[in-house]
């Protein structure tokens, strides 16, 4: 890390301003990506101190959830990490199912793995793409936007929405996969994504300008990263191979063969490298999951948790009553508390849920992966140049939707 420069000691002209300068960055600034704000104390271009501030996108997710039924919370989870909403849906549904003691169907487990890994890929693409835009490498952004668009088409086909997916339900999913969907997923995963990753790889990974710009920008040691609660790619870039898909296998991740890439220095370059490799590993998982995808129903066979079929509702009084109770009162979840964590694109996405036995949650606390990462930004950039803040911020991938909730 560069030491703060004492310009008066160098015999410069005495009228040059030698006092630290305070500047404000954000909350509405192209390089802060979301509504983030920093108060920076600068000596020349060197950051002496940095105070992050957020909350501009706070919309009371937790308060709103307490007044909703369990199923009504699913659409709210889309808005947490809006770059990979399907993963939030999966994380939330898993938490409620843990409380209900539901064992979802084999097919649903595989489907959830496939949609999660597709989301991981597009999340990393957005992160790397926009990070590179900030550093002046616009081409990579377009190289990654094309496959991302293809994945969004798949998601739209899956659940009718591109961004606000609300795909999972307690005990299953909104709908089964459309006819031929897996073939189209494979076509994108084989024909579009690897080529785009290779293009970006060719432009950046051995590019001297890129390496000199990112290597050493915002480093962190493994010890500090753990103490600050970092998870996900930012922790792995610091050399800690923690990945809940391997370490606390959920769904069916223990049945797949994939690697967990780790870095060494924990700097912007390592974070980029880890994400690039994770996309390739996600492709491997999708290939294996589709190859093993079992048939059968996607929802569990339990009328307490699954809406009756629409056709039955029209002609059968029990189904009609069931439907009404289901919508108006919500799924009955036993009293208790659980914490359920999944490996989202940015790190550990945890849901702490308290139920008192009603049709809606008594308390939901989201543990967003961004929260400790954003807290750690001053640690990453102190003593570095102000321009490095932009590179580091992009590579840490702060999503205000889940940060502010």
């Amino acid at each position, binding site marked *: 890390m560069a030491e703060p420069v004492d310009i008066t000691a160098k015999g410069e002209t005495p009228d040059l301003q030698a006092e630290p300068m305070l500047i404000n960055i954000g909350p509405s600034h192209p390089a802060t990506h979301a509504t983030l704000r920093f108060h920076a104390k600068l000596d020349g271009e060197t950051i002496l101190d940095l105070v992050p501030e957020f909350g501009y996108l*706070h919309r009371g997710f937790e308060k709103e959830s307490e007044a909703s039924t369990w199923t009504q919370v699913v659409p709210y989870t889309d808005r947490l990490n809006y770059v990979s909403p399907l993963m939030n849906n999966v994380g939330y549904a898993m938490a409620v199912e843990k409380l209900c003691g539901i064992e979802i169907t084999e097919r649903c487990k595989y489907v959830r793995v496939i949609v999660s890994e597709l989301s991981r890929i597009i999340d990393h693409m957005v992160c790397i793409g926009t990070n590179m835009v900030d550093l002046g490498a616009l081409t990579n952004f377009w190289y990654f936007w094309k496959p991302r668009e293809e994945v969004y088409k798949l998601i739209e086909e899956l659940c009718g929405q591109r961004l606000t997916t609300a795909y999972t339900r307690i005990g299953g999913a909104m709908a089964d996969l459309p006819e031929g969907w897996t073939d189209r997923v494979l076509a994108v995963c084989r024909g579009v994504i690897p080529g785009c990753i290779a293009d970006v790889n060719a432009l950046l990974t051995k590019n001297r300008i890129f390496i000199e710009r990112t290597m050493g920008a915002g480093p962190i040691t493994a010890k500090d990263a753990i103490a600050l*609660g970092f998870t996900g790619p930012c922790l792995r870039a610091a050399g800690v191979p923690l990945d809940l898909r391997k370490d606390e296998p959920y769904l069916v991740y223990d049945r797949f063969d994939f690697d967990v890439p780790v870095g060494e220095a924990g700097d912007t370059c390592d974070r980029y490298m880890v994400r690039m490799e994770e996309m390739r590993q996600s492709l491997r998982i999708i290939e294996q999951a589709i190859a093993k995808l079992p048939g059968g129903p996607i929802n569990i066979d339990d009328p307490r948790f699954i809406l009756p079929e629409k056709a039955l509702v029209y002609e059968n009084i029990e189904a009609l009553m069931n439907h009404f109770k289901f919508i108006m009162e919500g799924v009955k979840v036993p009293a208790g508390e659980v914490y359920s964590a999944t490996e989202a694109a940015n790190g550990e996405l945890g849901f702490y849920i308290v139920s008192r036995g009603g049709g809606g949650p008594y308390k939901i606390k989201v543990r967003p992966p961004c929260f400790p990462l954003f807290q750690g930004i001053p640690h990453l950039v102190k003593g570095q140049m102000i321009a490095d803040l932009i590179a580091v911020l992009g590579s840490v991938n702060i999503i205000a939707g889940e940060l502010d909730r």
Partner: protein
Amino acid sequence: MVLDRLRARFPADVVSVHSDFGDDTALVRRERIVEILAFLRDDPELLFDFAMDLTGVDYLGEEPRFEVVYHLFSLEKKRRVRIKVRLHEGDPVIDTAVPVWPGIDWYEREAWDMYGIVFRGHPNLKRILMFEGFEGHPLRKDYPKAKRQPTIGPEE
């Protein structure tokens, strides 16, 4: 295993334990909370080096009313534990855990902001999601969901 060890070390401070839904949970008294957390982090059998989450819960109508919930994770043992502390409404004060995990700083600020729980000794206990000048603590159960407050205008 974790809970047994915790109980053996702090017999007077652990109020109750359970492992419902597979989550190891201990309800402890607040007086020695920092000691308990430091023990969980440093004990060679436990090594809970990650403070994954901290939040408050408002059990309005019960006494003690508030609960502070810590979620810890051990990288080496791949284990989790939940530590809970009950706080009375008139005295929602607990010692800060920032000396144990620097990363817990903002979680405590959020619990202060949302529930009004005071973390004694916290280096910078101020609002984090809401703005300075916001009145009340929005996640308390007696704070109406539809209540509106004027947002901050230019300073006088």
